[in-house]
């Protein structure tokens, strides 16, 4: 199958000023967005507490906010995960400035610099979600199967008179039952399906209840780690860029390395602009996604540069523009096919990969489009820029 009947002959170089303008506008808009609202930093970088909580019965953001308001966390970010399930991310952030102030105040008192406060936040939120009825059951010595660890369930069964073997087996089975989409057991009917010993089942029915919610994950990041990770991410980007630059300069000529690095900066700036526009939360995985795209885009660029290098030898008489145009056109099918297959997989990741890597895959999708655009419209254009201003006799 072919995309083009014969070798395509688009005048990409003719559009380079249009492309410069377009990218320039995006980056300027990004810079404005940066100064006006700044990045939406996730807890990886800002520090704070992020909880993923799953509810058995239907609830919504407003209900949760009401509960959180009572304990003074009404301003927390609440985000529903998926449509069917009642899963939410709750993020309570403490800004870095605030943290620095409080650290200053408590200087020398180690306990107060601890994560302790954040930990308390998680505990407070947990206890706020417990209903009055459940609280009464807990006070009456019952345990909440949905919030008890395997170990706790086992020990509990033993103290209630189950044999060690039964307790072990049952707690394992119960734990496995919780490994579903919601992390919860809905009703005792589901428990009955496990075919536990009758004795165990009676203990469970008499002494336990199935709580309405569970914390699927709790992440607490202190402010120090956040700033540390930020500098690490910047370092990683810097060294990766330098490494690639050196390699290209070594394998090609300097002019290619120059154009490649400008293209990379372009990619990073444009992706960051989109991150700002869509208010995507900056996390470690987002940084990983950006760096991956840098690699991907460079891969694309090099394939084209490789062709340019070949064609410079074959088409000595031709103008630089037409050599470059020819090279881009010759590799165009490959560029489209590879972007296409990569997009297919990333789309699969986006639609089926689950919430945790949703942003990651979203950025990959946008980034692959940007990378493809930049290797066609930006990288070679910068070759031309360098050639025009710095190279007198030889071409590129």
């Amino acid at each position: 199958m072919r995309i083009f009947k014969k070798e395509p002959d688009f005048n990409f170089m003719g559009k380079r000023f249009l492309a410069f303008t377009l990218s320039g506008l995006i980056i300027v808009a990004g810079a404005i967005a940066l100064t006006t609202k700044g990045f939406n930093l996730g807890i990886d970088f800002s520090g704070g507490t992020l909880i993923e909580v799953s509810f058995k019965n239907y609830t919504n953001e407003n209900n949760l906010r009401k509960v959180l308001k009572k304990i003074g966390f009404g301003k927390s970010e609440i985000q529903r995960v998926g449509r069917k399930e009642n899963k939410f991310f709750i993020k309570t952030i403490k800004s870095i400035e605030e943290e620095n102030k409080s650290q200053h105040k408590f200087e020398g008192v180690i306990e107060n610099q601890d994560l302790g406060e954040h930990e308390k936040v998680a505990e407070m939120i947990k206890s706020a979600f417990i209903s009055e009825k459940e609280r009464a059951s807990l006070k009456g010595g019952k345990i909440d199967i949905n919030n008890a660890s395997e170990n706790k369930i086992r020990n509990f069964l033993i103290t209630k008179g189950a044999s060690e073997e039964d307790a072990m087996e049952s707690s394992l089975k119960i734990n496995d039952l919780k490994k579903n989409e919601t992390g919860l057991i809905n009703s005792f009917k589901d428990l009955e399906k496990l075919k536990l010993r009758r004795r165990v089942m009676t203990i469970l029915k008499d002494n336990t209840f199935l709580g309405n919610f569970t914390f699927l994950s709790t992440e607490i990041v202190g402010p120090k780690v956040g700033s540390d990770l930020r500098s690490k991410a910047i370092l990683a980007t810097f060294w990766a860029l330098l490494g690639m630059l050196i390699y290209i300069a070594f394998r090609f000529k300097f002019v290619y390395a120059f154009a490649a690095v400008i293209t990379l900066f372009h990619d990073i700036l444009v992706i960051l602009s989109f991150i700002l526009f869509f208010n995507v939360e900056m996390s470690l995985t987002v940084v990983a996604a950006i760096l991956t795209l840098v690699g991907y885009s460079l891969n694309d660029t090099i394939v084209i540069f490789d062709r340019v290098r070949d064609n410079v030898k074959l088409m000595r008489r031709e103008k630089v523009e037409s050599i470059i145009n020819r090279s881009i056109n010759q590799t165009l099918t490959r560029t489209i096919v590879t972007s296409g297959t990569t997009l297919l997989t990333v789309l699969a990741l986006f639609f089926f990969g689950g919430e945790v890597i949703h942003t990651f895959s979203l950025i990959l999708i946008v980034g692959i489009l940007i990378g493809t655009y930049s290797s066609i419209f930006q990288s070679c254009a910068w070759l031309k820029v360098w050639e025009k201003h710095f190279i007198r006799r030889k071409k590129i």
Partner: protein
Amino acid sequence: MKKSMGWKVGLILAVVVFSVWMFYPPKDKINLGLDLKGGMHLILEVQTDEAIRIQTDQSIEQLKSSLKEDGIKFEKVKRVGVNKIEIIGTSFDDERTVKDILEDDFRDWRITYSSNRIIMALRPNIEMKMRDQSVDQALQTIRNRVDEFGVAEPVIQKEGLSGDRLLVQLPGVDDPARVKSLIKSTAMLEWKHVVAGSFPSKEDALKKYGGNLPDDLVILKEKGSKSCYVLRAASVVTGKDLKTARSSVDEYGAPAIGFSLNSRGARKFEKYTSKNIGQRCAIILDNRVLLAPSISAVISSDGIITGRYTSDEVNDMVLMLRSGALPAPMKYLEERTIGPSLGADSIRKGLYACITGLILVLIFMLVFYKGAGINSNVALILNIIILMGILSYFKATLTLPGIAGVILTIGMAVDANVLIFERIKEDIRFGKSPKSAIESGFKKAFLTIFDANLTTIIAAIFLYQFGTGPIKGFSVTLIIGIVASMFTAVFVSRVIFDLIYGKRKKLKKISI
């Protein structure tokens, strides 16, 4: 021709068999990251300042007794900052002997003399060594505790550039609160003489001394309540004198902690108890009084600590006492707990996305390149098999971003094939015979593939170097995937072409 084909096919088969053998069955062979199997990820910072402070305080005690022994008068010895000692008011006549004592016994300190004060500062190289040691010791202590607690495949290592951070990863732990306190407790065990108490609050205790507590006494709270004891500051014995601790029961059969002191400790304890029968001696853990029983008989080496403990609490305390005290307190910088259900959900979804992506790519390649598409599809599947094999061989950890890396690899791995196929098509269009087009297509595309992939690998290596947890997992799969794709797309695809078309003398058309 035939002969060389033989070893090529053999090599491919060997690689595939080895890979499958490495990762089959995947459930046991592939090392899942915390985000996939659930567990705890902690980053702790050892408060090395505190370790230095403790060291300085000990030196001050030593200094005081040395000065007293030699009959040198001084007004005051105090700590300045964490690493300096100031001696105030030694009389000038004594300077000679003071110098002798200091320079003989306190070589780790840089000493400056002025008119009526002496300032001792811990030498920077010694201080650095002490800080390093306290981190190493903390690491070892945590390892002991985790090992005794029985976590499978824990990761405990230094982290970051500052040198005082520890990374602790505990897969499968679903009781975070218990583990956290277990790791963090300094576990300083002490026995101190009870002077008075208990008092309902610290203020009440102070009142007894007119609001001014003598230097050699301390007030400590009781664990889990507000009541306080006034104790002699100097310990009778400490955790350092402990030989072992074990879970035990008291006379009523309730859980209790049994302990044995070593011979030095036993001697000290025997001497102390024989003099103080009828008095009370407090057992203190991390500056909280556990209990303050009265001494009813001379005790030398063995005893039990009773209280209203659950058997879990007793086990944890025994474990901490056995693994030794931490040299300095620690602070949690980061803590991530992933429940087992979330991990299982992530695996399911990641796998689903992987398979969907793979099928989409396979179909696409088949439609676009027809016969050659089958070739690249075989190469792609081999690629994934080899990727899994290498992952297992290096015992690399598969994380959720790692799965994303696998998915991305699927998309990018076919790139090498696409490059080759497009070159072949191009050459055929130029009128080359299919056979020589295959030949030149592979040859021309190879350098491109090599350059393009190597730059991506460079980026991935830096990701690995600077990245933490999830990013590392991602870059590892990416690197392995790319390397494997070079093998499968370039080498395996070529062999497949040769196997199919190599024998035919006249090849007019190939399906591409």
